[in-house]
């Protein structure tokens, strides 16, 4: 009697910390040859970190990695490749101007005995590989002429030519049509039957249940469970993904909710979102939840004039407005705290005071001059209100912690005295203590009559802070819940596109 073969890849109790953020805290993941294994979890649960570990990009701080039962360590992507691991990304990373065969053999073209590239042999081999995948793509087609789906197949062909036995597919279906997904799944099943181990990372639960044999659920960087797909239901999976973590957050204060300040009707932007309508009232915190790529930020960008809408209407205090730039948004009293603090929120080399006053510079003096005393007074006032911890207002914001930088961004927009404040992931990447402070500030602003749109990928944050919760899935609003109705399950069902099913049951 022989022992069962060891798993193709095994991660045991791996942990990883990035600065203040503990991305993974002891996750187990066992991948067997001949299985499709799904990895699911909310945004920020640790999926990408795990994928990057398998790709050799990140090394675990603690825990072990085994390939075919042998303990090993990847010092870089090359080691992962040598171990037979290939990663297929949502957006294929190919050379657009080179043809299919050149991409498959990039950097390791077959040579003839004179050291010249054996072009004929290369095209023949790539033709054969694509043939085994059962796809019809010209080996001499430039990659940029292919659809995303075909580009992924080129990546898979590349993986096969590298003798990869483990395929990690990171959100491979995110930009595919239903038919393309079917074709991909047929290929994935064939590869599995040929003995490959496949890790399938996705948000789409229906696809996960269609393709996978086993499912591993992660939450907050921790392993929740691994089970056979046939033993789990969609509902159970969602419950395990969200867990129960509503304590430990700042309790929201009750605010008096007034008339609608901002209302949006039928707003659409091709390729991003469609037919979005909602009202935001005085004193209200409206949560906007969705998984990554659901279109939340895109909606905000249109409202603040960073992008154009194709259709729809935006009203402020009942009057239709056209907002073509951030300055226009500011004039109408709309402030947007962007998601990307470093790229969009701050001028890192500028001192705190210069950052805080950047949007209101024209108000800071007469005849175009800068009144530095007023600048200092205003910046000092907001920095004190938000308790920004820094050596002084002259300190460059690059010297501050992430949490304090976020407070500077908040201060900057509060200094514009807005009626509507749109917060995009306001607590991402900041420590727990500052997070609670930000929640206190936001809640306090609402009681003061400000209308707040809170975009967040963190469900507990949305549920704790919001008076109402809107949910988006793939560019559409798929749910609207009052504070009482908004349970983790209800919101997650809408966010994963299961709303229609849920309504059928209800």
């Amino acid at each position, binding site marked *: 009697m022989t022992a069962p073969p060891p798993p193709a890849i095994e991660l045991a109790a791996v942990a990883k910390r990035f600065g203040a953020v503990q991305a993974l805290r002891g996750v187990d993941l066992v991948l067997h040859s001949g299985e499709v294994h799904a990895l699911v979890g909310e945004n920020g649960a640790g999926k990408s970190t795990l994928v990057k570990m398998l790709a050799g990009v990140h090394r675990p701080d603690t825990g072990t990695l085994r390939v075919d039962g042998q303990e090993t360590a990847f010092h870089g992507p090359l080691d992962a490749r040598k171990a037979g691991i290939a990663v297929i990304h949502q957006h294929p990373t190919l050379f657009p101007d080179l043809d299919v065969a050149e991409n498959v053999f990039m950097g390791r073209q077959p040579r003839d005995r004179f050291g010249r590239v054996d072009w004929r042999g290369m095209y023949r081999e790539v033709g054969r590989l694509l043939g085994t995948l059962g796809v019809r793509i010209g080996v001499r087609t430039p990659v940029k002429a292919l659809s995303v789906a075909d580009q992924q197949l080129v990546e898979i062909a590349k993986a096969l030519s590298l003798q990869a036995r483990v395929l990690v597919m990171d959100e491979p279906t995110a930009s595919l049509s239903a038919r393309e997904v079917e074709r991909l799944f047929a290929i994935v099943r064939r590869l599995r039957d040929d003995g490959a181990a496949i890790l399938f990372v996705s948000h789409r639960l229906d696809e996960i249940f269609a393709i996978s044999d086993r499912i591993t659920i992660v939450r907050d960087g921790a392993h929740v469970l691994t089970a056979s797909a046939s033993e789990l239901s969609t509902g159970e999976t969602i419950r395990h993904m969200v867990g129960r973590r509503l304590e430990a957050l700042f309790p929201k204060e009750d605010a008096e909710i007034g008339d609608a300040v901002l209302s949006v009707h039928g707003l659409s932007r091709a390729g991003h979102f469609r037919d979005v309508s909602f009202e935001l009232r005085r004193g209200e915190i409206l949560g906007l939840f969705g998984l990554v790529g659901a279109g939340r930020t895109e909606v905000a960008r249109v409202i*603040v004039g*960073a992008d154009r809408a194709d259709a729809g209407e935006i009203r402020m205090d009942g009057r239709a407005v056209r907002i073509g*730039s*951030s*300055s226009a*948004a*500011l004039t109408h009293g709309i402030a*947007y705290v*962007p998601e990307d603090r470093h*790229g*969009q*929120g*701050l*001028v*890192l*080399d*500028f*001192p705190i*005071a*210069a950052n805080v006053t*950047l*949007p209101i*510079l*024209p108000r*800071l*003096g007469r005849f*175009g*001059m*800068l009144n*530095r*005393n007023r*600048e*200092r007074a205003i*910046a000092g006032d907001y920095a004190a209100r938000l308790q920004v911890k820094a050596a002084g*207002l*002259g300190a*460059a914001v690059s010297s501050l912690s992430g949490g304090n930088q976020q407070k500077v961004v908040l201060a*900057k927009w509060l200094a*514009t005295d807005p009626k509507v404040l749109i917060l995009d992931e306001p607590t991402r990447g900041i420590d727990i203590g500052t997070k609670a402070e930000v929640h206190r500030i936001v809640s306090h602003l609402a009681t003061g009559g400000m209308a707040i749109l809170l975009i967040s990928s963190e469900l507990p944050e949305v549920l704790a802070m919001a008076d109402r919760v809107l949910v988006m899935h793939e560019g559409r609003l798929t749910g609207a819940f009052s504070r009482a109705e908004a349970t983790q399950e209800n919101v997650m069902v809408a966010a994963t596109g299961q709303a229609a099913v849920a309504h059928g049951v209800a």
Partner: protein
Amino acid sequence: MTLLARWEALLVALLVILIGYGTATSDVFFDANNFSFLTSAAMEKAIMALPMTLIIISGEIDLSVASILGLSSATIGVTWDAGFPIWLCIAVALLVGAGAGLINGLLITRLGLPSLVVTLGTLALYRGLASVLLGAEAISDYPAGFRTFGSGKVGGTQIPWSLLVFVALLAGFLVVLHRSWVGRQIYAIGNNSEAARYSAVRVARIKCWLYVASGTLAALAGVVFTARVSSSRADNATGFELDVIAAVLLGGVSIFGGRGTLVGVVLSLAVVATLRNALALNTVSAEVQSISIGALLIVSVLGPNLARRLPRRAIRGGAVAVPEPGTAD
């Protein structure tokens, strides 16, 4: 002391050394007459360096300035030849310069084209237009008053008129860049144009105006140049754009935008003009002058980069071009 302040101190030291070298090696160097010659020869470039400083701080570049200078000179020539009064010729030349700058600005901000490519194109285009206007001929029968503006001195002093023009412009640019909120916005654009755009800074509008200013002042430099050499030729001041950009970079302005001061640029203009003059008085050939200035430029780019690699603590609070609010700078 910030990195930039130290750079400016270095430029002052260099200037002192060059003046010492000039005085020691030539009898006529430290002389009011020579000063007058030295400055008036540098004024066209100095005038163009003012808007160029702002453009480079905003993260862009303008390669077409010398061609606009040539176009302005050709415009004056053609209109004067056609019998217009000289003040009208000057006004038309300035308008043509403003229009040339506006075309640059619109191509860059409306079409989103890189300024390097746009102004490389208009460098050739505007120079070509100057040739079309003037052909191979030179126009030089300018009135005495115009020639006096070009080569004459203020009252009984040795101060050239063009230096007064430059000083007045410098005062204006100092206020705009270092005292007004538009100046602050220019630094913000150069540091992080995306964050500036989100902060309600009208990035496109400001950049467009900077190119209009650059075109107008390049045309003004064309007026000064034409008056000084009292001749309009289509190839006037060919290649000046590189000297202007070199002076701005030597002045400590980062080619990547967001950093630098006008004080540094003025010092660097003085250094380059003094170096050229001192070498010329020692009958050093123009080629060797160019080599010296080229070497100086390389050093100026290397210097701050090397300084940045020093341990963090050594440059704490450094590398920030924006003065702290409230401090008297």
